[in-house]
């Protein structure tokens, strides 16, 4: 419905569904739907009965997850220590950074404004502990702020679901008559300990209560943003050729990579033109590297493809595919590394001719000759399954078998003479047939079998040809003959 990022109108009840045990269940609902009585977790068909005009979309869990991870890093604008909380929350450790935004109340307003500009609805709270903030944000008043000493009072009125317990434990507490967090607090500690001594954290109200009140530590483990490696050179006047600046840029970038112990797999060269346009050139390497000379060489014929327009005054070089890279020394004298030279050769060839031109054939398990060989990237790590068939195979294979006209003595037998590329070949000797049946699990129905012959003509050329099908096999007319390869 609204996949382009436009928010749906507020007056239509819309839910997101996910696959449940007995058909789709409600994953999330908008405000109108919730007002109409839609409960997350119930079945979509039941809710349709309650609310016939309900609109259903399927949820994208992985997409939400990735978006939330990006939002975690985006939230670093307010404080340096952020982490994702479950499937729908962010925890920001704002200790010491609220005064930069004019106090806690002003900070919450600022956050809500910025998030709403992104199209997100947020419920925010400030509290001394993770657990208290979680409960207040979901069940407390709007933009509630909880001081260091107030947690006891502010949490007391909230429902027990605010303790981050699993559904079974919440149900149990409700059956015990403990409906608010305050009621749980009033229960003697010893009784709660005895009742929940074996429960895990998510099912243990005492430990959750201790976490919310700060008696049990719950540190925020912030995740690190990946460092971005980019260098730029600002020019005093617009130029048309970035080549003189490339060696220096490559050296600066590789120095930064070396300092971090990283190598890169891709390079993006971007030039910013004076007329407001941007051009870029990308190159890739087959193994991570940080050698400036090698990286510079990959741009050799590529920078000419940049259309300079009226010139450009800013060049940036950014490393992509950054990964950890260890320095390996495989020879005691510190001499050249043979594998390294091979990867660099493949890089140079791929950069000039494109990655599709540089391949490596590997064997696959198939009897059909053209399927027995696959093309993989030149330095791809492959498990070599290759068991060469014991039958003799030609040294050369044609990409497309070439049809020939054949004279034969008996229909099922070898050819006596054939015309290939307008030349007549008389068969002096032959070996075969070797019958290769179609692979029924891959081929279309009606594919014909092949009978391969190795024939030698009067001049001594050894040719591999096959007859496709048999006479009267009910899969088309007379069988056709093809040349498929040449022997040494």
């Amino acid at each position, binding site marked *: 419905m609204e996949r382009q990022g436009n928010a749906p109108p507020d007056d239509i009840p819309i839910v997101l569904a996910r696959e449940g045990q007995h058909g789709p269940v409600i994953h999330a609902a908008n405000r109108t739907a919730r007002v109409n009585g839609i409960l997350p977790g119930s079945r979509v068909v039941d809710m349709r009965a309650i609310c016939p005009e309900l609109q259903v979309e399927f949820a994208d869990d992985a997409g939400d997850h990735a978006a939330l991870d990006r939002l975690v890093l985006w939230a670093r604008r307010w404080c340096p220590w952020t982490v994702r909380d479950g499937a729908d929350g962010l925890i920001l450790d704002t200790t010491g950074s609220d005064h930069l935004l004019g106090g806690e109340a002003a900070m919450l307003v600022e956050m809500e404004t910025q998030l709403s500009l992104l199209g997100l609805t947020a419920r925010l709270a400030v509290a001394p502990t993770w657990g208290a903030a979680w409960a207040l944000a979901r069940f407390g008043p709007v933009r509630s702020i909880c001081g260091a000493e107030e947690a006891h009072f502010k949490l007391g009125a909230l429902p027990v679901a605010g303790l981050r317990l699993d559904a079974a434990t919440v149900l149990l507490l409700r059956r015990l008559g403990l409906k608010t967090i305050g009621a749980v607090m009033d229960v003697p500690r010893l009784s709660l300990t005895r009742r929940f001594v074996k429960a895990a954290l998510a099912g243990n109200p005492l430990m959750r209560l201790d976490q919310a009140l700060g008696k049990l530590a719950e540190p925020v483990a912030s995740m690190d943003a990946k460092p971005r490696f980019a260098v730029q050179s600002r020019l005093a006047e617009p130029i048309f050729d970035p080549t003189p600046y490339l060696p220096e840029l490559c050296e600066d970038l590789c120095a930064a990579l070396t300092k971090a112990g990283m190598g890169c797999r891709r390079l993006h060269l971007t030039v910013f033109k004076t007329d407001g346009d941007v051009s870029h050139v990308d190159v890739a390497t087959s193994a991570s590297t940080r050698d400036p000379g090698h990286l510079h060489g990959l741009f050799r014929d590529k920078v000419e493809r940049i259309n300079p327009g009226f010139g450009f005054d800013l060049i940036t070089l950014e490393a992509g595919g950054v990964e950890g890279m260890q320095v390996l020394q495989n020879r005691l004298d510190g001499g*050249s590394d*043979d*594998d390294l*030279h*091979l990867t*660099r*050769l*493949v890089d*140079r*060839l791929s950069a*000039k*001719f494109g990655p599709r*031109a*540089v*391949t*490596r*054939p*590997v*064997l696959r398990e198939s009897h059909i*000759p053209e399927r*027995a*060989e696959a*093309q993989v990237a*030149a330095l791809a790590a492959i498990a*070599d399954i*290759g068991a*060469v*068939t014991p039958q*003799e*195979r*030609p*040294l*050369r*294979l*044609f*990409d497309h078998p070439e049809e020939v006209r054949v004279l034969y003595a008996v229909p099922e037998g070898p050819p006596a003479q054939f015309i290939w*590329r307008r030349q007549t070949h008389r068969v*002096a*000797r*032959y*070996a075969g047939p070797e019958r290769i049946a179609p692979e029924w699990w891959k081929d279309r129905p009606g594919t014909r079998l092949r009978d391969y012959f*190795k*024939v*030698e003509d009067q*001049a*001594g*050329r*050894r040719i591999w040809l096959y007859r496709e099908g048999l006479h009267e096999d009910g899969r088309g007319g007379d069988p056709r003959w093809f040349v498929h*390869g*040449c*022997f*040494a």
Partner: protein
Amino acid sequence: MWCMGSLRVQKRLAGQVRQPDPLTHTLSEAFPETATDAAAIGFVLTRLPRTDAPILWVQDRLSRKEAGRPYLAGIGTRRPVIMVDLSRAADVLWAMEDGLRCRSLGAVIGEIWGDPPSLDFTATKRLALRAEAADVPCWLIRRAASPDLSAARDRWRIGAVPSAPHPHDTQAPGLPRWSLDLFRSRRSKPGQWVASYDRAQDRLNLAAPVRDRTLATGDGTAGERAAG
């Protein structure tokens, strides 16, 4: 003239002139007699050093279309093959020259169709010098080409001849046999042979061809061309 000669002799006696090492790998050219003949490929593969180092195999578009691609099941998987499929002969020469900078390759094989203008004496000279500097064997397989000026150290003309009799089946072709014509060589004496190749033992047997033509006049070297 005499001074030069005596100087050379003195230098040689003093051990200052390096003799060309006959085992150094270099550039060789192979001219198949017919375009679709795989005998040249078979012969080139027997000449490569017996290592597991990868082969860089560069083909231009016409060679691939007209003569097929190398087939791994027939070549064997002992050496990995890095295939480079290009469209122009100039690109093939560039890729071969770039590959010869890499000493870890076992061989560089290039296939060029016809006589493109980019494949001139200078290009072959560059390939030969690079191959000798890196000590990597380099083979140029030239189909539908005329053997004109080239700096290749060895130049072969290779064709298929009827194979040896099969030991168990009189109808079937046996061990492959090739007619080899080394018509120009810098390091050894040119000559003609009929080779039969035993794949099981990886062994190439050379035999002088049966000659039934009239005896050549001259001093016996008339069939050879000047080396160099």
